[in-house]
C-alpha cells in the first residue's frame, strides 16, 4: 500500500518562509511551531497569534427546509438562530455518540455554514447526506476556503486596524460577512484557545495576500504566527475537547461534558435517547480534568488506574504552559469523577499520582 502524499496548506510556502517546523496532523502536513510552542502559547495568552487552520472543513446547507433540517440533525435549537449568530454543537449518531463537533452559522434563513473537523469531512458529509431531505442542498466547499484563527487579547485591535471598523459590538459566537479587498470574508468571534479572538473564512486564492495583510496590521500589536503545537496546549488549558482524542463515535455528549450543547427540551433530534437517559440517570463514565500530584507528564493513550484497577484512558494530556502544571483529560467511571478524587496515571510502566480538578483549567479574566 502506498502512502498518499500529505496535504499541504495553500500558503504552505509562506509558512516555511516564516520558519515553520512541519509535522503531521491527520492527513495534513502542518506548521507545528515557528519559533517555539511555549513562546507562541504565551503570545496568544498575552498579545496575539494567528493560526492557519485551513485544514478544517466547510459545508453550506441551503434551501427552504435547511433550518428545520439542521434543527432535527443537531441537538441544539438551530431554529432559534438569527442571521449572524453561530452555535457550537455536537453532531450525534442514533446511538447518541459523537460523529463530530462543529459550529453552525446562520448566514440567512435558508443558508447555513457548518465548520467541521478536517479528519471528519468525508464522514460528516456522508452522514448529513444520508439524512438530507429533498429541497435541501449540501455542498462541501472545504477545498475552496482558507480559515485563519486570530487569537489573543489584542485580536480585536488587529481586526479593527485591518478592516477599519469597530468590532466591539460583535459578540462571542456572532459573525459578520464583510466585503473586503480580499473578497468576501466571514469574521466570527470564536476560537479554540480560551482567549478572545476571531476566525476568518475566505476564498483560497486570497489566502496569501490576506495572511500578509494580517501581519502588517498586526505588527504594532506583536502578532506572531502560531502553530499546531500551541493550538493544542491552549485548547487543553481551556478545557476544549479534541475530536478523535476526547470525543469519538462512542462517547456521548453527556459523558463528554457537552450537555450544555444539547437542548434536552427539544423533543426530536438525532441521538436524543441515550443522552436523555444519561442526563437523567447519570452516564456510566465521564470526561474529567485532572492534574498531576507528582512529577510526570500524562499523554494521550496512557491509562488511569486506582490501586492497580484500570479506570479508563487519558484522552489528552501535557504540560500546561500558562498554569505551569501537568494536566490531562480522561474518562473514568462516574463514581471516580468527583473533584479531589485521587488516582494514578501509568507513565512508562509506573503509577504517578493525579487528582480530579475542575476544567476548564484556565479561564481568562474578562
Amino acid at each position, binding site marked *: 500500500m502506498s502512502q498518499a502524499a500529505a496535504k499541504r496548506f495553500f500558503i504552505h510556502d509562506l509558512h516555511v518562509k516564516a520558519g515553520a517546523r512541519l509535522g503531521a496532523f491527520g492527513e495534513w502536513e502542518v506548521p507545528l511551531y515557528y519559533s517555539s510552542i*511555549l513562546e507562541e502559547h504565551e503570545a496568544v495568552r498575552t498579545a496575539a497569534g494567528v493560526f492557519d487552520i485551513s485544514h478544517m472543513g466547510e459545508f453550506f446547507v441551503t434551501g427552504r427546509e435547511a433550518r428545520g433540517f439542521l434543527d432535527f440533525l443537531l441537538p441544539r435549537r438551530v431554529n432559534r438562530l438569527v442571521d449572524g449568530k453561530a452555535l457550537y454543537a455536537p453532531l450525534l449518531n442514533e446511538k447518541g455518540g459523537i460523529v463530530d463537533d462543529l459550529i453552525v452559522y446562520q448566514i440567512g434563513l435558508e443558508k447555513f455554514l457548518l465548520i467541521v473537523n478536517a479528519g471528519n469531512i468525508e464522514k460528516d458529509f456522508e452522514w448529513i447526506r444520508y439524512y438530507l431531505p429533498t429541497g435541501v442542498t449540501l455542498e462541501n466547499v472545504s477545498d475552496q476556503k482558507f480559515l485563519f484563527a486570530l487569537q489573543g487579547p489584542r485580536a480585536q485591535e488587529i481586526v479593527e486596524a485591518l478592516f477599519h471598523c469597530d468590532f466591539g459590538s460583535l459578540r462571542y459566537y456572532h459573525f459578520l460577512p464583510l466585503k473586503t479587498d480580499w473578497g468576501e470574508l466571514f469574521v466570527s468571534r470564536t476560537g479554540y484557545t480560551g482567549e478572545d479572538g476571531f476566525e476568518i473564512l475566505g476564498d483560497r486564492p486570497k489566502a496569501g495576500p490576506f495572511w500578509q495583510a494580517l501581519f502588517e496590521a498586526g505588527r504594532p500589536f506583536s502578532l506572531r504566527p502560531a502553530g499546531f503545537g500551541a493550538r493544542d496546549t491552549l485548547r487543553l488549558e481551556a478545557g476544549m475537547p479534541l475530536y478523535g482524542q476526547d470525543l469519538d463515535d462512542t462517547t456521548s455528549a453527556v459523558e463528554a461534558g457537552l450537555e450544555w450543547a444539547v437542548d434536552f427540551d427539544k423533543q426530536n433530534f438525532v441521538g436524543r435517547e441515550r443522552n436523555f437517559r444519561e442526563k437523567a440517570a447519570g452516564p456510566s463514565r465521564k470526561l474529567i480534568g485532572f492534574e498531576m500530584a507528582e*512529577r510526570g507528564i500524562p499523554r494521550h493513550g496512557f491509562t488511569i488506574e486506582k490501586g492497580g484497577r484500570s479506570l479508563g484512558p487519558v484522552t489528552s494530556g501535557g504540560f500546561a504552559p500558562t498554569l505551569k502544571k501537568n494536566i490531562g483529560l480522561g474518562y473514568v467511571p462516574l463514581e471516580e469523577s468527583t473533584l479531589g478524587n485521587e488516582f494514578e496515571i501509568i507513565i512508562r510502566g509506573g503509577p504517578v499520582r493525579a487528582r480530579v480538578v475542575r476544567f476548564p483549567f484556565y479561564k481568562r479574566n474578562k
Partner: protein
Amino acid sequence: MEFPEELKYTPTHEWARREGNRVRVGITCYAQQEISDVVYVELPKPGREAVKGKGLTVVESVKAAFDIYAPVSGPVTAVNQALESEPALVNRDPYGDGWLLEIDLKDPSEWDSLLGASEYQSQCITTH
C-alpha cells in the same frame, strides 16, 4: 550550532565529557533544537546501572517524550537536580548547566568507540 571538540558523541544525539572515569552526559545542541521546549526531565536514581546503547532516561518536550540512551556503561553516580525545577536549562545551555547525569565509566574502550565532534557534526548535516 556548537559541536565542542573536547566532547564525544553518540549517533542518538547524546554528548559525553570525561574526567578520569567520571562521564558527564547531556543532549546535544542539535538535539535540544530538534525537540524544542523541554518541559520535563526524568532523573534516574543514582546507582542505577547504565548499559551502553540502552534507554537510560527520558526528556520530554511540550509535544513528546524522547528516550536518552547511555553513551557508556556503568552506575549512575549523579543527576542534575536543577532540571527538576528548571528543565529549560537543557535548551538554554545543553553542554553546561543543562547536563543530565554522570556515569562511572567501567570499560574505557567504550569511550573510544564514541563519535568525535566532526564525525557527529557530519551526521547531523546529512540527516537534516
